[in-house]
């Protein structure tokens, strides 16, 4: 058998690596900022800046052209996981959470942000019904929302049709269930009753 010399096999065409990846172990994250979060970002920039740079030892900048927040590791970074934490932190802020609430993401490991839309829960809500559902979620003066937040130790952001929940896994589930019940149309008093029962159970667990 003849060992034929390898014919010219087609090499897979890999595009040239981008500059960032070439450098040794520098991770970069980019988080885009929508227009309505632009001014809050400007106002709270220092509050965002300080913990990332001082505690997490990362580099952060805002790219004005792309309207993106860029995070990067540097020599001082001790833990590579900090980048992810910082990215989550900034993302939470961009979602609509307050800086102090989002800070909990940096401090605690097992906090997450869960986002979903109302039409995921009930797709048939349209127009007025949808608005009423949103109103039910908020309650008068935001009462219902705050109640859920206080009982389940989470933070909820109602951004028109999107809902973001920040907290530990269990608490997110409890809050999500309560919100879904509200969307589906149960009155707040009922939801409170269920919440109370569940919360008393959950307080032990945590």
């Amino acid at each position, binding site marked *: 058998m003849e060992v034929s010399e390898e014919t010219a096999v087609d090499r897979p065409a890999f595009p040239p690596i981008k500059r960032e990846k070439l450098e040794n172990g520098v991770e970069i994250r980019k988080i885009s900022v929508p227009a309505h979060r632009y001014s809050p970002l400007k106002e709270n920039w220092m509050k965002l800046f300080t913990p990332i740079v001082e505690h997490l030892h990362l580099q952060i900048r805002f790219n004005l052209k792309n309207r993106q927040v860029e995070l990067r590791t540097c020599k001082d970074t001790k833990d590579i996981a900090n980048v992810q934490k910082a990215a989550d932190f900034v993302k939470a802020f961009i979602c609509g959470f307050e800086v102090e609430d989002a800070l909990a993401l940096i401090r605690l490991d097992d906090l997450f942000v869960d986002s979903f839309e109302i039409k995921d829960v009930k797709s048939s809500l349209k127009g007025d019904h949808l608005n009423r559902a949103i109103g039910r979620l908020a309650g008068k003066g935001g*009462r219902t929302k705050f109640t859920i*937040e206080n*009982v389940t130790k989470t933070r909820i952001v109602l951004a028109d049709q999107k809902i973001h929940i920040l907290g530990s896994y269990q608490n997110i589930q409890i809050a999500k269930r309560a919100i879904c019940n509200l969307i589906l149309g149960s009155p707040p008093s009922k939801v409170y009753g269920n919440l109370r029962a569940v919360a008393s159970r959950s307080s032990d667990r945590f």
Partner: protein
Amino acid sequence: MALNDESAAANTKFKAITKDLYDSVNRNFTLQGLTGSLPELYTEGFDEEQIWQQLELHNEPSFKILMKNVAKLLTGKDKKLSFYKVEVQTDDEEQEENGLENEEDKDSVASDLSFQLPSDSDNENEDGDDSDLDETDALKFDEYKMLDEEREERPKKNREQSMGKIRKTEVDDEFFKVGEMEKFLEKEEAEKPVKDDDEDSIDYFEDVLSDDDENEAAVKAKYKDFFRGSIPAGDQQQEMDEEDEDLEEGDEEMEDEEELDDDDEPREKRVKFDLNGSDSSDEDESDTSNDNLTKSEGKSSYELRQERLKAKIQELEDEAVAPKPWQLMGETKAELRPDNALLEEDLFFDHTTRQAPVITEETTKTLEEIIRQRIKDQAFDDVERKIKPVYDPTEFKKKLVLDQEKSKFSLAEIYEQEFLKQQETQKAEAKSSSLADVPNDEASEDQNRAALRKRMATVFAKLDALCNFSYTPRAPEPDVKIVSNMPSIVMEEIAPVTVSDANLLAPQEVQDPTRGVLKGTTEKAKTDRLRERRKKKSAQRVRHKERERTEKAVDKANPGLGNKHAKARVLHNLQKAEKEGTVSLIKDNRTKATKSSTAFFKQLQEDVSASVDAVRQGKQKTNLKNKRSTGSQFKL
């Protein structure tokens, strides 16, 4: 030569007269203290000059002495020389006597006078003039001297009394002096009232009654005429009366004056002092006064005293017997009192109502001080919010969970607190040796705090012992401990030795406790069953009412059949009505199609009328039904 003869004769005559005069004077009238004067005037063989020198020898010293005497007379200390006319006719002898005594003096004075005049008059005329002058002058001077002496001789008592020590008091006025009054009183009491018939002594306290019309004015003189200033009110009134009376009397005779009233009477006395106001009325009439005087002459001092006492006694008795003044009569009306008499009275009576506080500057000042002090001390009387105390642990169940406000802590802080709490519980668990120990309620316990608590406990125990344990203990507050209804086996034992389905929560904490004894279905009596039924019905009624209320609200919001609730309700009612029979549905079992519109409408009308009849019958039935009332309504 004739002239010379005449002059020589005149000279010798003159000399002779002078010698006679000088000799007689020297013999009879010698001045005291006069020395060095010749006993005789030697005119023979002496020159004019020498004679003159002799005279001078006599005159010079006597002149001095006489001047001294005159000066003494003129500047008399207590003797007031008042030169008033006394008839020279009366006693020539007296005058002569006195004149002789003082001739010497007058002589020298006259001589002096004569020597003072020489420039004016001739020497020839001087004799006669001088002598005349001497006589008249001497006489006049004599009179004055005599009168003066008389005055001195008069008893000096009065003068001393009047000029002596008079006590001065506050009450003294222009016309009234207490001291004078007292002196007068003493005098009166000391002396017996003796009526002097001498014309010289005058009874000053007798009203001077003159028959002359001229003196009427003088008698009727008033206070105003004598003194300036205002008259006291009472006297004014009296004066008015007097004036009226005077006007009335007019040109009446003097006799009327004698019948003077009490008001009229002591005008002069009023000026001084009105000692015996009423009594002195007696003294108006001279007759009566005379009588009195004669009586009093006969009475002794003891009798007088007795009289006075009796008068006083009489007065007191009259007062006692007379009707009492209005102040001492029980209840008096305004008619029984004089006008505005209460204003002058000091009244005491109890005030039943509480007086309104008089707001003066002092009270406001004190109030402001209090306010300022309170502000400084920050001791305000603010109302403190009262919190209803919680006695029932089930209350906490309701309060625990729901906080409808935005949480003040951020999520990070909340988790932080949670974490710390967990840590502490873990620490506590780690410390406790066995699970059977009583767990501490306080999560974290400093050593200091523990020590403090121990010491406080000992102190309180001692205090309780001191007061013999008679204290009110603190009200028991419910402890809050969250216990979840887990199976107890999970919490207590590590290794499940036995299986038990006991829960941590007691049954009454799971379910509300029922009152009374629990009875099974077979055990229930009729009353129990009915009671349960009533309870059930009342609960149903409440629910029904609630539902109706919500439906009304919905109807208000969306009237008509706009909302699905209304639609569903209507359908439901229709079905119910059909079941009852109040409504009969128009059964549409028309096989044949109506040919014409009239036929169609006719058919429709028939069907409708049939259904209406059915409905009416049903209504009648229901009305009858509704009138039936339940027995419970009639229950008392």
